[in-house]
């Protein structure tokens, strides 16, 4: 590995190179004093440079255990971990079926659809459902709701929380113990108290909030879902340099991936649709372009199929493409009203 690849400033790099330090090995045995003198820089700066050196080149005791790579996990361990993992239910069984049990933690799921199809509804529903107590088979987590469009309606969140509580109590009506144990949690207001709401008014704030979330999540340990409604709005409104927009967006998506993995939580991005001319006709497609379509783990598209709302798994490493109907009721997202089974695997 060369000096050129170290995350240090260009001027420091130039100094290192001109002083003859071209590879990491050449730096591995240098003391900060020596480096400071060779480069004619402050001691502090020299020790900062040495700090960014990869750990293993500094420490001589390399072989602690037989790990091939520090931090790597075998697929076997990950599989058993994943089997322990609970998913966040959408409230609609059919939708949960095609999603493999609900929205998965450690993954970034993007949901897109035309205006009025129910994206925000799904977002609010997930912010509520993530809080279902463990006794009721939920995750008992908290939610971060990042609202870029001002479409989060707290009245609606209250309604959905009530609907969720009603259904839970009904489902567990024979388990008096459970009901008694969680009486306090099962109040709409305590659901609302665990939704952290950020209102974002520009893309700068959107980037800022995502950068800041790392710190926020370290303090608020129980957050299990981050919802961004919508990820598109400000980037489509006022970003003029498209090439730079792509870079900033892909940086942002890596940051979100990292949050999902580090804090073991689900990230749900709501996206708008736009029209695109391909193969001689106009078709609907999710906004932000081709490059962005790689920025999520799973992609779900909500669409009208005749008079029913349907969800379609457009992209996923682990789920097969499938579609299922759902409906938006006063209680929230539920199964489609016509009760025939219409989950379709493709």
């Amino acid at each position: 590995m060369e000096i050129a690849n170290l995350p240090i400033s260009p001027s420091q790099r130039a100094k290192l190179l001109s002083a003859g330090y071209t590879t990491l090995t050449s730096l591995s045995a240098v003391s900060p004093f020596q480096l400071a003198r060779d480069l004619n820089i402050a001691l502090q700066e020299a020790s900062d440079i040495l700090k960014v050196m990869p750990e293993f080149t500094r420490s001589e005791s390399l072989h602690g255990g037989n790990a091939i790579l520090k931090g790597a996990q075998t697929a076997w361990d990950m599989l058993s971990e994943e089997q322990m993992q609970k998913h966040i239910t959408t409230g609609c069984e059919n939708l949960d079926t095609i999603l493999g049990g609900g929205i998965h933690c450690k993954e970034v799921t993007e949901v897109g659809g035309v205006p009025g199809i129910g994206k925000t509804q799904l977002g609010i529903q997930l912010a509520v459902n993530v809080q279902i107590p463990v006794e009721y088979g939920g995750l008992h987590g908290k939610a971060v709701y990042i609202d870029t469009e001002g479409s989060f309606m707290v009245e609606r969140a209250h309604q959905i929380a009530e609907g969720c509580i009603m259904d839970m109590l009904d489902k567990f009506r024979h388990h008096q113990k459970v009901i008694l144990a969680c009486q306090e949690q099962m109040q709409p207001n305590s659901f609302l108290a665990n939704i952290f709401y950020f209102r974002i008014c520009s893309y700068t704030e959107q980037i800022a909030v995502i950068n800041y979330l790392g710190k926020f999540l370290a303090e608020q340990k129980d957050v299990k879902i981050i919802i961004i409604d919508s990820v598109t709005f400000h980037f489509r409104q006022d970003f003029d340099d498209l090439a730079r927009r792509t870079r900033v967006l892909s940086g942002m998506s890596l940051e979100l991936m990292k949050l999902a993995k580090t804090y073991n939580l689900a990230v749900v991005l709501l996206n708008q649709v736009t029209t695109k001319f391909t193969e001689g006709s106009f078709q609907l497609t999710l906004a932000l372009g081709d490059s962005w379509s790689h920025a999520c783990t799973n992609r779900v598209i909500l669409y009208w199929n005749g008079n029913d709302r349907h969800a379609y798994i457009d992209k996923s490493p682990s789920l097969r493409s499938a579609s299922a109907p759902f409906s938006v009721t006063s209680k929230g997202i539920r199964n489609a009203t016509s009760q025939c089974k219409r989950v379709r695997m493709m």
Partner: protein
Amino acid sequence: MANKLISQMGLPPSVANVFAARNILTAKDALSLPEFELMTLLGMGLDQVKSAVERISEITCPPYQTALSLMEDRVRLGGHLPTLLRGLDDALCGGIPFGALTELVGPSGIGKTQFCLKLSLLAALPSCYGGLNGRVIYIDTESKFSSRRMVEIGENSFPQIFQSEGMAQQMAGRIIVVRLTSLPEFTERLQQLKLTLIQHDVKLLVVDSMAALVSGGNDTRTAGPKQHLLRWPLSFLKSLAEFSRIPVVVTNQVRSQSSNEAFHYPFQGKEKDSSKNFERLESHLIAALGIQWAHAVTIRLVFEAYSGQKFIKVAKSPMSPARAFPFIVESSGISLLNDDGFKVMGREINTIRFQGHNILEQ
């Protein structure tokens, strides 16, 4: 928040100076660059850039609220402008919400302007009569605003107020009409409005109509108005609504559907061909401002007419199921024939029909 100065963020002076020297002055300047570009531009190491960006982000990031405290705010401050159409108010959880963009879409002559006039009056009325007791800014782009009609609506809906001496004048005086014809003019006025709204206790902003600004006059039937011109006014209107906590109501026209309209995703394939033709016949009108606009509005009310009946439909709303209410336009403005309305199934909620009246001949 985006324009906060980096020099005032408490970064170590050496770092802050580098930012200043490279002309990166605000949080916006810094955060719209990827970290890597910052590294090369500032000539700093990754760790330094990371910690600087972290600091900038933390300060730029707006504070959070729990949904519960949001709810308490709503209850305390009031969150709606009641339309006094009971069915509609119920569906919208109390009326036109503060802090959000509400759009009225429909063919011309169906009653959008009537609805706007009525809302303006309601916002101007003293609180003891259920109004907001504030001023109204009415941006009229098609010269459709009629004070006489407004007073007529007032006299018929609130006879007790408008019969008392001087009230009619006082009410009318609270409604400030701004006549505009072009988009640049509109953009300019919007910027001035920001201050006006707060200084003059404005409680409602109406833009009638938005589509006319973009398409330049009445030429809305030709496809493809220049959508990108709306980007800035759109986000500005939204932020105006948000920060002054007032309802913003805009109207949108309709146009006939052109052949290059997309309704399907690639994965839906060709199976839809037959139903596509069906849809074409069924709904030949669509909102003049396209899909991007539709994404941005929080509430969309569709005005339509068919079978000799007019309807208001709650087409997009985060809190209401799809409902339609039959209405008539009377001397007192719009009134609902039926407060229960009826449920609309599926995508029909988005169609705009205008049967019995041929729009092309008007």
